[in-house]
């Protein structure tokens, strides 16, 4: 028995410790966001956050994930209330088949948590491990820029309202 903290909730998981986190997220916790793309850590479709850093859940055994904060796509928002990065991907219509997009969103989320003002070059460099086959790259980049703007203006807004309250 292993305890995983996923999207702010604690889960008891009964599985072989060598099981890649991806299978547990999908099958035991019913979270569809992380996708199986290669099982080799080569494509990024399975990207989730572990303590705010992007990891490839297809090659991360659950024993490694124990005691860490795991965030998946589902942790960023819902269909009715998507998070800022999800909203930006919808606004830019940044998907074709969309299979790589959850991984893209999670990798972008990791960047924006660390640096809400990335340069275009930083965005490209940061997103590079993740593959997209439909060729949606330009829209993905636009969505990351849009999300960065939204996060910055939300932060400024919240700073202003805190200032006003004081």
């Amino acid at each position, binding site marked *: 028995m292993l305890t995983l903290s996923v999207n702010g909730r604690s889960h008891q998981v009964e*599985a*072989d410790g*060598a*099981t*890649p986190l991806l*299978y547990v997220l*999908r*099958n035991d916790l*019913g*979270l*569809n*966001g992380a*996708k*199986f*793309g*290669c*099982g*080799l850590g*080569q*494509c990024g*479709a399975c990207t989730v956050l572990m303590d705010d850093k992007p990891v490839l859940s297809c090659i991360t055994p659950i024993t490694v994930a124990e005691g860490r904060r795991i965030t*998946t*796509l*589902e942790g960023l*928002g*819902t*269909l009715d209330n*998507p998070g800022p990065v*999800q909203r930006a*991907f*919808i606004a830019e*219509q940044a*998907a*074709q*088949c*969309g*299979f*790589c*997009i*959850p991984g893209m*969103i999670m990798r972008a989320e990791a960047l924006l948590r660390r640096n809400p003002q990335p340069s275009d070059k930083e*965005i*490209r*460099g940061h*997103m*590079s491990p*993740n*593959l*997209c*086959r*439909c*060729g*949606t*790259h*330009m*829209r*993905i*980049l636009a969505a990351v820029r849009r999300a960065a703007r939204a996060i910055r203006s939300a932060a400024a807004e919240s700073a202003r309202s805190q200032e006003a309250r004081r």
Partner: protein
Amino acid sequence: MSADPFSLSRRKLLAGGGALVVSFSLARSPFSTATAQAPPQPPRLPGSLRTTPMLDAWIRVDAEGITVFTGKAELGQGIKTALLQVAAEELSVEPRQIRFITADTAKTPNEGYTAGSQSMQDSATAIRHAAAQARELLIGAASARFGVPAEQLTANEAAVTAVDGRRASYQDLASAELLHVAAQPQSKLKDPSSYRLIGKPLERVDIPAKVTGAVAYVQDLRLPGMVHARVVRPSSYGARLRSVEIAAVERMAGVLKTVRDGSFLAVVAEREFQAVQAMDALALASRWDESKSLPDPARLYDWVRNAPAKDYVLQDGRSGIETSGRTLEAVYHRPYQLHGSIGPSCAVALAEGGSLTVWTHSQGVYPLRDAIAEMLRMAKDKVHCIHMEGSGCYGHNGADDVAADAALIATALPGRPVRVQWTRDQEHAWEPFGAAMVTSVRATLDGSGGVADWQYEVWSNAHSTRPGGAGNLMPAWHLAAPFTQPVPEPIPQPTGGGDRNAIPLYRFANTRVVHHFIPDMPVRVSALRGLGAYMNVFSLESFMDELALAAGADPVEFRLRHLQDMRARDVVQLAAEKFGWTIAPKLPKGRGRGFAFARYKNLAAYTAVAVELEVERETGQIRLLSCVAADDSGEIVNPDGVRNQIEGGIVQSASWTLREAVTFDETRITSLDWSTYPILRFGDLPERIEVHLIDRPREPFLGTGESAQGPTAAAIANALASATGVRLRELPFTRRNIKAAIGI
């Protein structure tokens, strides 16, 4: 601008478009030609109404509300949204009022494959007419009820309203029989000036679920009691399973069963990772006999040129006529290339009570159903195939095969839903590739810089080995009582397969085009986005550039010189104008510009692409700077959808062109993952991609999905030649190939 003889103002373009609309609307097919013919022949119905004429096969209005059906499948191309727009427009309802059902053998029309950029022509045309006719029938029912002439009624938001304010909803008005009628050849279509939805960028209906983790793909389907299976594939195409020790594998934790039928080998477990571990163990416990069956990769193109072929003369200009003038010739090569879906193929199947249900991301649920029924020797009506999305496929990938895997395993384990997920290396090794091809072209320039003689030959394998029958389901080859793959036939013109776009749209004095069709397929091949058009357009448009250079002409002007089709000219001119194409531009060292154009299949969308790139001589690295495309897809339903397809096509084609080749030895495929088969990454992208659209209201829909593939490849090749002075004719243009060509 004065140095730019063919520049085109937007005003002139729009004026030209307007004139075209008038002339085409008068001669609008399919009705005008049909009504002009002798009466015994009934007029052709529009789109897929030809094969499924009953209105209620497409549209139902009942207690459940308004339901629209299509036999086409969402593949990530956004077809569901575009079809919804067309249906809602002509039905006079809001998109959210429609329940939309896609490819399902128990529910929807049989529209064959979702392929060939045909969905707008086939399905959107059918839905458009069916919706318009349904709307008029509903208005007719209201007219009878209210005792008011139809002209005094309006349909809006799923209800019919009279001028006196009386109102009846579609659900009130629709009886069970109202829409159970055959479609008429003519419909009262809406005037483009009244469109609320067509031509507007409606947001894709599938994206919110995809970006928030809802069940969006067959990979996400988790049925009660579902178990996980993995297949152990042969080590190479011809390998046969000599022996396998299953006892130890069957004792592994969670393993429910191993399935062996000849060389078909699979394992089922309760949990997914147990199935993965059991698959690995089973692979280690199996012994295969294999032999060399592939061409020598070092001499692949000799094999393509010399394999037994059936020859088809597509255009029969005289061969080798005496023309005075300069003659050029060139030969172009394309390797096998992958679909390379990011998510490997997956399917779920459930055998129960003598029936089989298969959830699949196949492009053709009906042909797949027939093939599975044949493979399992079941009646077709006992097999039910339901489409669910998968990862983008770009043609015939492993979708049908994994559905066959699931069907085989599920029938061995009745009562439990079986999910089969291919591994990355299985997808890389077993999907049918885009065919290796060779083209040769020889042309003679006349004294005035025109092409007097054009001789073109293309050597290619088949470009479609879809099921078909069970013989085109790869797992069926491995059964103890195997199905053998049928000898493929070429796809006939005018669409063509290996010869797709082999016939130039340009008007030359003398043109001869020959297709050498190679039936033998030592390496498995089938439809990859664009089929032969990718290679043929790459070859034609590279060679047009070579001829322009030889004629001392600007490449864009040289194309226009030979191009009579007005819509083609508009697209070429618009791309040139938006790109800022100028004759003999002064560019920094190492930079180049290239241009290319094609009308996909010579009957679908018109697309021109201009590219600027930079070559780093020391490394052979190409850096794409800008790509500007112009496109005419007829009447545009969703402009953002068209743009998304063209943008994606440009990036994908750039990836094929700069990076991609399947590798193999004489026995096995050796490109088995993303490190041995690299594709384009974010760092390789151009700084800008622009897509400019020409809308043609009232014109037929023209398929867009594959039209950027060929022009992009040629535009890159032409830009590379302009940057380095060296012409590359063998794909892909990897760093190593570029360095070798420019002599570093």
